[in-house]
């Protein structure tokens, strides 16, 4: 191909919500072989378009016989926002791969990695300490460990040797994927040589340096960020140009302006993601990079105000389509809301988060302590847990398997029934824990009390509708009059 631009292809695609299981089924082997562990190809097709299974789960598709069907399915199901891989081997992370603007249309994939910066002028012990801190930072949230995910190495020195040395030190000290940040191609070249085999994200191609950065991205087979602050026409021009150079693994940074310019930041991130997901605009069909760290580039403000601003900017960019974040602050109060919010918006909005059914023990319960029961919907469970803990109650809490439904929904949907309660009492051998046979059920399940007494032989006490009422309820009603 000659000339400067790609031919414009007017593409009309179906969004992931418009693809029916039939569209997929037509291309499948239709042998009902069961290798995907589904009953038949139609069941697999349904779960595939729901995002619950992957193309990789259909093994026959990867044989020569179905090569053509595989290709067609790959194109049919390709996300309008490209998936870009940073890093190599088992430590690599995928970013992007988004299908929709809003999570209620289709579950978001590839939770936004949070990279923390280090720079090449840090004394080596400080550098190593910061890298260690980044690698070890974690929080246990509803039974899952949430962590930081990458290291952004900034060339503050502007010196190739200094940058290369720092990159080498960090690469040796951490397996986390790297983002190399230097706008001088000579410095970037030295950094890339020092991170051989790590396939870092190159930050960044700009209007001034794109030719040299394109050469580096191709030579190192590394993904390339494109930086065009506040200028979407320039961003498009750079993407088109880099595409013409043969580079497809791009990450877009339209600029993060946390103060003046915040409106443009939110508008630009939104416009790019809407164009990709609603209009299938390929030029904007790349992951978005948000850089809350830019708050540190401006102003004579106190450190706490800058951290505050970095925290709220990061949270807004998580909500507004950022596929990767670079931050500076390592303070827990800055990071914790981000790690939790990221976890939350990447859950399947159609599927409630659940906790393991079973019996939980709070405080130091004895033979006379109350026995409560609730559902295994995580939010229900953690609300009850938090109320019990806040009031320092000594009790047992049975967590019944309601398929992750809240009490109200589980009662209505007949997942939380007299029989289900009987099963939970029996399977957890609750009778052995206490010397009484009184069970406190949630107020929202009051209508089950009669049949539950029959099904279990236990005396049923109807507790408060909201677990915040438990302390008062127990003060007034426990122990029960016999």
């Amino acid at each position, binding site marked *: 191909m000659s000339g*400067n631009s790609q031919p414009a292809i007017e593409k009309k695609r179906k969004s992931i919500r418009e693809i029916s299981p039939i569209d997929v089924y037509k291309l499948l082997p239709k042998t009902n072989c069961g290798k995907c562990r589904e009953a038949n190809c139609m069941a697999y097709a349904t779960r595939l378009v729901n995002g619950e299974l992957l193309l990789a789960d259909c093994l026959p598709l990867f044989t020569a016989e179905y090569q053509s069907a595989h290709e067609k399915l790959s194109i049919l199901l390709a996300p309008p926002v490209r998936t870009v891989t940073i890093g190599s081997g088992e430590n690599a992370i995928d970013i992007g791969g988004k299908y929709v603007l*809003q999570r209620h249309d289709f579950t978001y994939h590839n939770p936004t990695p949070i990279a923390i910066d280090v720079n090449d002028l840090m004394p080596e012990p400080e550098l190593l300490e910061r890298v260690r801190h980044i690698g070890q930072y974690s929080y246990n949230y509803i039974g899952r460990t949430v962590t930081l995910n990458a290291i952004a190495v900034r060339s503050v020195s502007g010196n190739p040797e200094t940058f290369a040395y720092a990159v080498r030190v960090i690469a040796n000290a951490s397996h986390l994927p790297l983002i190399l940040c230097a706008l001088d191609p000579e410095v970037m070249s030295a950094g890339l040589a020092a991170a051989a085999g790590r396939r870092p994200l190159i930050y960044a191609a700009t209007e001034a340096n794109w030719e040299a950065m394109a050469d580096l991205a191709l030579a190192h087979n590394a993904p390339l960020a494109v930086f065009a602050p506040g200028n979407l026409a320039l961003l498009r021009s750079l993407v088109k140009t880099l595409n013409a150079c043969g580079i497809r693994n791009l990450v877009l940074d339209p600029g993060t302006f946390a103060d*003046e310019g915040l409106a443009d930041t939110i508008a630009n991130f*939104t416009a790019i993601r809407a164009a990709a997901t609603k209009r299938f605009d390929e030029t904007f069909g790349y992951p978005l990079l948000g850089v809350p760290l830019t708050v540190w580039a401006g*102003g004579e403000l106190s450190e706490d105000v800058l951290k505050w601003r970095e*925290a709220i900017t990061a949270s807004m960019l998580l909500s507004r389509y950022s596929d990767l974040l670079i931050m500076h602050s390592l*303070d827990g109060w800055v990071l914790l809301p981000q790690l939790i919010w990221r976890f939350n918006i990447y859950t399947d909005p159609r599927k409630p988060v659940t906790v393991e059914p079973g019996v939980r023990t709070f405080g130091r319960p004895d033979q006379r302590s109350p026995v409560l029961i609730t559902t295994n919907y995580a939010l229900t469970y953690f609300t009850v847990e938090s109320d019990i803990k806040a009031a320092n109650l000594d009790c047992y809490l049975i967590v019944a398997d309601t398929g992750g439904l809240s009490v109200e929904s589980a009662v209505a949907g007949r997942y939380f029934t007299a029989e289900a309660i009987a099963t939970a009492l029996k399977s957890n051998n609750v009778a052995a824990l206490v010397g009484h046979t009184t069970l406190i059920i949630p107020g929202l399940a009051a209508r089950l009390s009669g049949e539950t007494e029959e099904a279990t032989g236990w005396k049923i006490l109807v507790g408060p509708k909201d677990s915040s009422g438990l302390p008062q309820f127990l003060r007034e009603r426990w122990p029960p009059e016999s």
Partner: protein
Amino acid sequence: MVQKNPETGNHPGLDAEQLFALAPHLRELLKGVHQIELENFAMEIGDLELFIPTTAASPGITQPGQAGGIPVAPVKPSALIQEAYIPAEYSFPGKIREVQLGATRAEGGSRSHSVTIGGSTTPAYFDPARPPAHPAVISLDVFDMPVQLPKVLKENVADVMNDPAEWARMNVNKFGADVITIHLMSTDPLFANASAATAVKTVESILQAVDVPLIIGGCGDPKKDAEVFSAVAEMADGERLLINSVTLDMAQAKTLERVATAARDHGHALLAFTGLDLNNAKELNRRLYEYIPPEQIVMDLTTVALGYGLEYSFTIHERARYAALMGDTELAHPTISAATNAWAAREAWMKMAPEYGTRELRGPVWETVNALTLLLAGVDLFLMMHPAAVLTLRDLIPKLSRNGTAHPEQIADWVWVRI
């Protein structure tokens, strides 16, 4: 590695007063108001057809970008390929109703000004050419009896907790509340069981203490609330209060009609509260339409704390707003969010290991993130408490509508910046 600020230095235990002292910095930065009107380019999202390229794709292709056929050995362009950027306009046929809160003397009340919420014609901050018709407003909470509050919240209001009128005055004068919410907690039959007459007196005292619009919060008991709300509505005839709230429980307890007609007859607005369920929200609104004009209905779709289900609140608000803008008039009402519910999260108020930071900052940032997240989902009014969270919202709400203020040179050098 970080330049130490001599005032804050390394102290993890920055207290709320210090934090409030920092907040004016945010206000100082409120300057440079200018807006650029972008040309509108209309584009309808029509029926899209499945596209499968006819050219044979090479094996292993998973990305649409490759389908066009990237040349094997591309010729590097000698200059930047110039591309234009034409902002697309997306069509949203619906519009969120405008609801007025508070009434001036000329309008039959006694407020110095009223506040209008709603009026959006696009999802929040979706189209720079169409900023929100009315910026989101902030209400600060007042309780009519001492309540249990996290330490970080309590220290800002400890002096006024026994005096609702004084509390309201402080919220307006010191913290800049646009609206005051008086929670009539003491009317709860399970607590003090204060009479409707007592509640009326409390509301009267607040009306006299401040001249901003009021939101009247009940105790959650459908029968008692109906009694209290009806009495308050009658006393405050013409004030355009927002009654917080009416529920499907009231419909079941057969008290909904009483409250709704009292609001209608005395010129107030109703807050229709439902629990994260759009069908219920629509059903409640349909019932209310029988008694009161839709322009007097605001929705509370439930705000859950960050970490305890904020994503459900976020998504229910996004869904409601999109559905309304696409034409579902039963959801085309402005929404409110109790951002203070953020404090239900343990991470907001609990002392935690040092790596998770001081709760003096963690708490207010929790409330702020809760509010900002739902601001992006389209919420029109926030119930808030912590001064730092309030100041941050007051700073950012106008900023989010001022497009064209980004200056590339501000951040162009971030890679090199010495921190």
